[in-house]
């Protein structure tokens, strides 16, 4: 949709394994063997419920895991071929905010409450590009214009608490994009916002992406946001990738039982049809990372689970095109459907 030719991926993650020390011997594995890639100008959505490891994936890419418990146990994170797992902390600081930026669910947490908006954006530019202060402030003003904040000159002088939630998220986007990053990681950027504001922010991200060609990894629990934004989708459950496909393919032909369940459980407009009807349920609860079941992690909640599912974790297999799924039962039928 961006009209850019298929190009080399900006980011490639291979076999990422994120662990947390628990003090009880075995580390807790929060992300297990995750691989993904995203190209220039492309939006990859990572979708899943709380605790599935989607946010930790983003934090692992930026090496911002909570210390001293979290660490990357295995895998590579290649940004234009450079493995970020191996670089020094100083090199990593130069990557964060410049090559890769991140925006979070709660904009207030990533803004300093006692520094004006203008200074916060200008300082990001100053640190990474070493321009003089006047140029940095000019860039800040230009960024506020670009994220369509009304009266940008006045806003430069204001503090975060003087802005509404939607405006704050615009400011964090302005900050994130100020150094023209190659990759933007957006972790539930609209979850804390009202629907009308969410629509504004999603439109904004899409427009800016079309203009700058930034690759976007959008992390969300909301399949509606996925349908709006994604080109490709990665579905996560209990720390592993269970399905990956182009967005239309995924919505037309969801194959993993978890993906199907999620789609059926999601109340959506017009979904009620004529009368009130029950929603599809996925029984049980998301497993604790401390007690991951053997075999397929979804098996205890899966209606189709067989003996094999409970014993042996299914590998991710291609089922045509870029569609792949990790399921013993439905992977075969997916090709037929």
């Amino acid at each position, binding site marked *: 949709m961006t009209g850019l030719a298929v190009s080399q991926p900006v980011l490639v993650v291979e076999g990422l394994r994120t662990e947390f020390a628990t003090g009880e011997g075995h580390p807790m594995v929060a992300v297990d063997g995750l691989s993904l890639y995203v190209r220039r100008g492309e939006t990859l959505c990572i979708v899943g419920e709380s605790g599935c490891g989607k946010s930790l994936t983003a934090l692992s890419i930026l090496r911002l895991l909570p210390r001293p418990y979290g660490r990357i146990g295995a895998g590579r994170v290649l940004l234009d071929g450079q493995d970020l797992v191996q670089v020094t902390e100083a090199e990593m600081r130069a990557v964060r905010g410049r090559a890769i930026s991140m925006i979070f669910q709660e904009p207030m947490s990533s803004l300093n409450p006692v520094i004006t908006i203008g200074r916060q954006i200008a300082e990001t530019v100053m640190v990474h590009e070493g321009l003089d202060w006047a140029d940095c402030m000019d860039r800040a003003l230009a960024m506020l214009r670009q994220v369509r904040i009304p009266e940008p000159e006045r806003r430069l002088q204001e503090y975060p608490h003087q802005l*509404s939630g939607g405006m704050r998220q615009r400011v964090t986007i302005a900050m994130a994009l100020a150094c023209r990053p190659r990759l933007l990681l957006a972790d539930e950027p609209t979850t804390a916002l009202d629907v009308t504001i969410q*629509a504004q922010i999603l439109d904004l991200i899409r427009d800016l992406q079309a203009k700058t060609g930034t690759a976007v990894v959008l992390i969300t629990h909301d*399949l509606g946001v996925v349908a709006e934004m994604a080109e490709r989708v990665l579905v996560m459950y209990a720390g592993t990738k269970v399905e990956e496909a182009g967005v239309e393919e995924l919505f037309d032909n969801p194959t993993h039982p978890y993906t199907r369940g999620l789609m059926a459980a999601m109340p959506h407009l017009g979904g009620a049809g004529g009368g009130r009807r029950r929603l599809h*349920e*996925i029984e049980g609860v998301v497993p604790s990372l401390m007690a991951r079941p053997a075999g397929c992690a979804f098996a205890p909640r899966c209606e189709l689970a067989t003996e094999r599912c409970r014993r042996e974790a299914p590998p991710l297999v291609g089922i045509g095109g870029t569609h792949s799924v990790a399921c013993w039962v439905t992977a075969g039928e997916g090709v037929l459907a």
Partner: protein
Amino acid sequence: MTPVLDVAGLVKHYPLSAAWFGRARGQVRAVDGVSFAIGEGETLGLVGESGCGKSTVGKAVLKLIEPSAGSIRLNGEDITALKPAAMVAHRRRMQVIFQDPYSSLNPRMTAGNIVAEPLINFGIGNRAEQQERVAALFGRVGLRPDQRDNYPHEFSGGQRQRLGIARALALGPSLIIGDEPVSALDVSVQAQVINLMMDLQEEYRLSYLFIAHDLGVVEHISHRVAVMYLGKIVEVAPRAALFEAPRHPYTEALLAAVPVSHPRQRRRRLVLKGDVPSPINPPSGCRFHTRCPIAVERCRSEEPLLVADTDGHAAACHLREPAR
């Protein structure tokens, strides 16, 4: 037939903190004249964006905060002016489920005691009978009775919300007010709780005031839906009419802003400009006119009334009045 809940002209203003010995400098007009009724076995969905006053309506109806004006009738009885002690007797008929299942349960009480507390408060049954009732309630909401001795932090979010539902059911109320009861839950668990609430409604002829911001959820559970904007109801209608033929431009914008359910439905949307104005000095005339795509001069000066047509579909808009 008397409605289970009848709210008329409900107002809640919060005075802004006054200077020493000075007069208050103004008021936050959180709820500014709201009227609605809920019949037996009916669900009224109350939707709106944050700060529109929908939760304040719920708390005022529950008398957890004192309304500034208006009247609240529960099964025909006026409870508006009742003092807290006098209110206790009426609480048997009206219960609440809160949004955050983490903070709405006392972390120092066991699950069994949390559900038994309403029974103890009203002296219903002896100790053994109370235990029996608690076990039955646990079973009804899908919790194992042997989980009674666990503390809230040992439950998942969805299970905690089931506990909250069991506590609300304990007294056999006729009305339950759900203040965003599923918005803190994961999608798969949210579906479980919505289904449970719908099953219970059928079983006990419950009436719900279902306060939410998620239009998809509201469409699923409601019989009628009221849309709030800046302290006022701007549109109220039977579910199908509201979602298929909305009249108020704000309702239209709200519906248009909901993300699509399939990527092929992506479209240029009607995106509302700007933010919700402050409820301290709400705009004159129609409160939505500052963001309304179709506003005319009249909207700035004259406040539109909520006019209902014969089907019970009402919208407060000068330009979208029903044909008479």
